[in-house]
């Protein structure tokens, strides 16, 4: 590629043609301020925080959207530039609900950081904030338009990353807002609650519903036996929230923190991830043998379930009937666990820590009840757990490593990799292959399912029967696969779909700094745990799972399993489609 030489503040830098001023400056340690810019998204150039001087140009140039040219002379430190950048930030602050001390994003707010960086201590501008009510109509996500800075990152996430297209911009001038179709509350739209919007919002305009207080309350209630399950993806991501290096494996510190917070038992969702593999693997074999609906599609990702129920409800038969690992855990916690411990299920509170905002919605679905009590009572995102740990004064980095409790604390490497895109597929194949073929897969590292490519495919030879499988992550890729099925052009037998880009390690409830680079590190750590840290790598080797079947469930797809571990899906109420334009 052709290279060009430019100067920034009289420092020469050589970069490939097509590089933006922003990227070139970062290369030589000049950190131009940004707000609407997000490294994983298309360039928007609408906030104008990143404007700089380009010699010969009348106007200032947005450094995020201006490619460099040979001989370009850029100035980023002049008074003219700093005044303009500061002016833009002041304008944003003047239209921003400065509720900073009561804001969920206090401390992680990019506008707050900019205000600090630009030493904004007073402003001559008029505070003028749009008076639009908060939308807290759903269990997962809260939108506060009074804090919105109109950067359009959420729109980009919803429309382009996810292809869901619920969030959009509407109106003009100072009435310009980020809106939903007909400005309906999210619960009246086909929002999937994937939360990718909340993960990219630079401020507190879109946040997860905060359930931390509920958890503190139940822990304080002595009548309650409070147990917690932690999803596979948390152990490689929560460290980010404490300044550890991206993707650092912190399983032991995390368990220790949960115990110190006062949970009666700390369990691992990996346990029910293994259980999912046993049930789902057998379901696949059953469908293959008995002419069931194929391709079969995984059902662990609640954002994905919401999506297919909303937009492809005529294809619901393709979904595995397995509940997600979270909900399998919930169901067992109020049945098997209750029986074993002799605790009244009404007094067991099951908390989940998930990388996901849609899990909050999933836990509240009406079908997920056992014995009249909710299977999962409260769902925390990674971000919320990090807040609870901070609040409790625990120095996360310094915590000793502690083991999960039994009996739900044992998980295999196959379960850990659920956190990464392709992991469920790989885990399922490790078991299905062995059940059908009678011996271990040639390599347990099923490389075709790994990596960040949007849609991955592979062929597997099951004793002479060759099946094609595919893995899709992010809903925009899921849509492509669903359209193939819709048109009768789908060559796959088994498909893994995860709503979020990268899988759960890139979930909408993950630490705010999640970028593609961070996701890659988390994936690396995930496979490292699988290969190096655990005694078992195949779900059917999990001794606790085998014990569970012997003692309680009896057999995969059996009567008890159907009662506790399987479910059915329903078309979502298409309120949007029913609205008549007046």
């Amino acid at each position, binding site marked *: 590629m052709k290279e060009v030489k430019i100067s920034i503040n009289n420092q020469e830098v050589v970069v490939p043609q097509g590089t933006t001023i922003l990227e070139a400056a970062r290369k030589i340690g000049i950190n131009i301020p940004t707000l609407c810019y997000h490294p994983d998204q298309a*360039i*928007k*150039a*609408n*906030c*104008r*925080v990143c*404007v700089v001087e380009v010699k010969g140009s009348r*106007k*200032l140039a*947005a450094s995020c*959207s201006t*490619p460099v040219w040979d001989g370009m002379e850029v100035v980023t430190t002049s008074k*003219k530039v700093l*005044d*303009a950048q500061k*002016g*833009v930030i002041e*304008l*944003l602050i*003047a*239209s921003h609900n400065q509720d900073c001390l009561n804001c969920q994003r206090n401390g992680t707010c990019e506008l707050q950081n900019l205000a600090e960086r630009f030493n904004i201590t007073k402003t*001559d*501008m*008029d505070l*003028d904030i749009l008076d639009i009510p908060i939308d807290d109509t759903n269990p997962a996500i809260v939108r506060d338009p009074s804090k919105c*800075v*109109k950067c359009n990152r959420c729109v980009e996430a919803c429309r382009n990353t996810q292809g869901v297209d619920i969030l959009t*911009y*509407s*109106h*003009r*001038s*100072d*009435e*310009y807002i980020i809106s939903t179709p007909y400005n309906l509350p999210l619960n009246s739209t086909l929002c999937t609650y994937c939360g990718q919007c909340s993960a990219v919002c630079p401020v507190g305009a879109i946040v997860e519903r905060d359930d931390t207080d509920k958890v503190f309350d139940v822990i304080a209630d002595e009548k309650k036996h409070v147990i917690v399950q932690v999803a596979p993806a948390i152990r490689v991501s929560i460290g980010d929230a404490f300044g550890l290096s991206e993707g650092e494996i912190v399983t032991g510190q995390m368990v220790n923190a949960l115990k110190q917070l006062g949970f009666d038992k700390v369990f691992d969702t990996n346990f029910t991830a293994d259980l999912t593999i046993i049930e789902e693997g057998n379901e696949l074999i059953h469908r293959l043998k008995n002419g069931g609906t194929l391709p079969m599609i995984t059902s662990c990702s609640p954002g994905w379930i919401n999506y297919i129920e909303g937009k492809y409800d005529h294809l619901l038969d393709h979904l595995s009937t397995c509940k997600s690992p979270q909900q399998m855990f919930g169901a067992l916690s109020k049945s098997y666990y209750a029986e074993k411990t002799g605790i009244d299920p009404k007094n067991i509170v099951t908390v989940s820590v998930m990388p996901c905002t849609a899990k909050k919605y999933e836990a509240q679905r009406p079908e997920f009840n056992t014995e009249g009590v909710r299977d999962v009572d409260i769902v925390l995102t990674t971000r919320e757990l990090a807040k609870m740990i901070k609040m409790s004064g625990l120095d996360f980095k310094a915590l000793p490593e502690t083991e999960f409790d039994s009996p739900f604390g044992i998980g295999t490497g196959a379960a850990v990799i659920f956190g990464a895109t392709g992991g469920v597929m790989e885990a399922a194949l490790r078991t299905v292959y062995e059940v059908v073929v009678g011996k271990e897969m040639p390599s347990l590292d099923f490389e075709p399912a790994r990596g960040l490519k949007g849609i991955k495919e592979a062929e597997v030879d099951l004793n002479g029967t060759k099946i094609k499988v595919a893995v899709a992550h992010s809903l925009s890729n899921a849509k492509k696969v669903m359209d193939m099925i819709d048109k009768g052009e789908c060559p796959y037998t088994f498909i893994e779909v995860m709503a979020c880009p990268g899988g759960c390690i890139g979930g909408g409830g993950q630490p705010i700094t999640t970028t593609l680079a961070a996701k890659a590190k988390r994936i690396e750590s995930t496979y490292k745990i699988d290969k190096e840290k655990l005694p078992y790598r195949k779900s059917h080797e999990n001794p606790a799972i085998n014990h569970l079947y012997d003692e309680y469930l009896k057999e995969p797809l059996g009567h008890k399993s159907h009662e506790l571990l399987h479910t059915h899906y329903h078309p979502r109420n298409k309120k949007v489609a029913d609205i008549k334009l007046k």
Partner: protein
Amino acid sequence: MSKTVSLITENYNKYNPDSIDEYINIGGFTGLKNALNMSSDEVINIAKASKVMGRGGAAYPLGRKWEQARSVPGDNKVVICNADEGEPCTFKDRSMLENDPFRLIEGMAIAGYTVGAQNGYLYIREEYRHLQPKMKNAIKQAKEKGYLGNNILGTDFNYDIHVYSGAGAYVCGEGSALIESIEGKSGRPRIKPPFIKQCGLNQLPTCVNNVETLAIGTALLTHGAEKYLSYGTAECPGTKVISIAGNVNKPGVYEIPFGLTLREIIYDIAGGVPGNKKITLFQLGGASGKIGPPSLLDTPYAYDDLHKVGLVIGSGAILVIDENMSVLEFLKSIQEFFCHESCGKCTPCREGNKQIAHILDRLLAGTQKDTDISTLIRLAKLMSQASFCGLGETAQSALLNAIRYFPEEFGLQ
């Protein structure tokens, strides 16, 4: 003797604008025929020789624009005629659509041939919806007579024209927002690069010309560049169609040679100010144009002369404000316009306009804060330097000139 001229508007009231036969009878389509007998380079050379500046507001040289559009590789290109004419007080293009629709079609065909386009799009502002049938009729007749369609006049030049309207947003006069609007999206400007000339409508190379510019194209190819150059001054040759309104006795559309003074235009052509009232200020080029005090009325209406005193031709509008309105009241009305028309996409324009409106309100009420004037100046500069598109960049043109020419209004003696 009248100071107006008749070259671009030469056909006004000379034929029934609903009849292509009448247009042909008075020499219509001679320009297109001449163009088709030349190479595109020869047409571009005529445009260059004429020194015509584009009439959309930015005054980009026509010859250079066509040459650049021609040199962009691609066998499927687009010409867009920008008839959005959204600048307040600007209605010269409307008069062309009303009085001489075939000249515009001829100009669009000449532009299409010159740059190598197969399709032309006529984007008519929503408020001119009533002119759509007239233009569609003209296009239909031109197709029937072989001036549009395949193998135009027996050549291998194929060209069709499509009529589009937006929903009335001012920002759609900006080329890339106009293209978004034609594509059915909300009218908001695009990031550049890529530039429209390389990647415009439906990702095709696109050449956007104003109505008047294309009408001049017809004149140039009909009469030659010399005829156009025979008007105006040596430095600024040619003619200009203007629209003048506000506090004048004879508001309307006039064609003038460059070089008349503003005083001649206002008093000799537009009949002066009703009641002989004093002029407070005038504004050239629409709401995004610059304002001037009466002391500049003897400035010649020509690009360089106006530029020297901080004025622009812009859209060709001349708005005259008499003593019944103060400078601040006028600025407030302009501000209301931009507060309504900002698309809201970028921070400086969306928030800056709002803040400036607050300050102007306080100045008018006499309740300003000590810091208001410095904030006002700071915001106006910020908007002009840091906005996403030309709308925000030029929205404070009037205010910045008011600070320059009427400092006493802001307590800046």
